[in-house]
């Protein structure tokens, strides 16, 4: 018998966080991306405040979903007690700034609170990525390549949603938003491939399978369709709004699919392993 180097029960899927927690990452990323897009690309164009308000609603929806997952929801304020080491606490603080500056921007229409809200939104989504990475018990989450993906997908989803909503809410999108969208979609696929490679080195086979299944959507739905849509938009200005809207929705759907897979399909622990077996009896 070939001597094995490690022995142990196989990893199993975590059950501590369910769809409610995944919703926090899904809506949180989209909301922050939408807020960034509204503040940086649409203000002071008509309708940017609606986009910003929708971003706030999305972030709030995510936090509301995770609130329902707490075992002691009425103690939620205790989440603020450990800014020294907990990325969950830092996420909560960042959300406070997002809502404070975002609400001020929506209420007043002023640009500076919108920019500050966008900065806070970037901090928020960064904290979300670090929350996952700090979960040391989940090999597919604790890789540093996860952060660029979570941040870029938030931006891609938010910008994509803004492009989809712009014709109705903001009278269309400035032409260079499409260029930014294209750049962030390309950046996201790079981040995804880097993440997939890193996660695959550590994660359980079933976790890898879950990520690879989602990866196909990130490639086709989240990259190919938006890139084609952006190309059509640049080549045919007459249909640019529709093309970018479709590309934006595709990018949004792919981001949601990927985050769902990361939290709920790739959340396998590493099981237990013995580097050596007990030596019993006579030698």
């Amino acid at each position, binding site marked *: *018998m070939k001597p*094995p180097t490690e*022995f*142990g*029960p196989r990893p199993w899927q*975590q059950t*501590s*966080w369910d769809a409610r927690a995944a919703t926090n990452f899904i809506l949180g990323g989209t909301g922050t991306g939408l807020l960034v897009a509204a503040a940086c690309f649409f203000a002071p164009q008509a309708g940017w405040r609606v986009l910003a308000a929708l971003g706030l609603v999305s972030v709030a929806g995510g936090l509301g979903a*995770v609130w329902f*997952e*707490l*075992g*002691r*929801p009425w*103690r*939620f304020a*205790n*989440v*603020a*007690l*450990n800014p020294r*080491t*907990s*990325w*969950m*606490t830092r996420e*909560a603080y960042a959300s406070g700034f997002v809502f404070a500056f975002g609400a001020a921007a929506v209420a007043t229409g002023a640009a500076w609170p919108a920019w500050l809200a966008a900065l806070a939104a970037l901090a928020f989504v960064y904290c979300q990525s670090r*929350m996952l990475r*700090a*979960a*040391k*018990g*989940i090999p597919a*989450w604790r890789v540093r390549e996860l952060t660029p993906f979570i941040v870029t997908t938030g931006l891609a989803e938010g910008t994509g949603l803004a492009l989809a909503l712009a014709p109705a809410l903001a009278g269309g999108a400035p032409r260079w938003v499409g260029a930014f969208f294209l750049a962030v979609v390309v950046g996201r696929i790079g981040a995804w491939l880097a993440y997939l490679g890193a996660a695959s080195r550590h994660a359980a086979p079933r976790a890898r399978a879950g990520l690879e299944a989602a990866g196909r959507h990130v490639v086709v739905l989240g990259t190919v369709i938006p890139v084609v849509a952006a190309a059509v938009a640049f080549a045919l200005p007459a249909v640019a709004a529709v093309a970018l809207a479709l590309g934006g929705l595709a990018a949004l759907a792919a981001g949601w699919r990927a985050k769902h897979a990361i939290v709920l399909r790739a*959340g396998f*622990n*590493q099981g*237990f*392993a*013995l*580097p*050596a*077996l*007990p*030596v*019993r009896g006579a*030698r």
Partner: protein
Amino acid sequence: MTRWAMTVDLRRCVGCQTCTAACRTANATPPGVQWRRVLDMEVGEYPEVRRAFVPVGCMHCDDPPCMHVCPSTATRKRADGIVTIDYDLCIGCAYCALACPYQARYRADEPRYAYGEPTPPEEARLDRGRLGVATKCTFCVERIDAGLAAGKTPGVDPEATPACVNSCISQALQFGDLDDPQGKVAGLLATHRHFRMHEELGTGPGVYYLWDRADG
């Protein structure tokens, strides 16, 4: 300094689960919550099959990831190395359960009973403060503290020793002060080859697994 630690002699453990039962009795954990478990690992293929019984639970790490991620500071580490949970602070976010590489943490949201309806002992020992919050092995910290206050020595005197260690029929589990060079734990580590679970993660577990003599 004192650093409470446990050794598990994998050569001695027979997988009887007495430690599991003792823990559940001592700590009144509900069905589905096992602060002390014994894994039954089977390795290889017939006829070259090896088997190992591996008691696991909270490793009371030197650098506990559960403590770092805890947003409420409910999880703390005492100076003597024991990782504790303040049930009154915990919000039940279960983040610690994901951060723990040893699957040592549980959250029960409602009372659970072995036979559906509560038996009188289950009813008497139900602690609603432990519902909806994270729970895990405490190294029987109350016994240790009470024992020390009474002048007893943890790992030597049963009154000051974790229930699982007291109950172990083969003395596979031992407990003591890692920093005491004359102590039982330090002695076992000096005379045996050992490892800690998932050492590569840098958590510094306080549970050591012995698997052979040092001169083996």
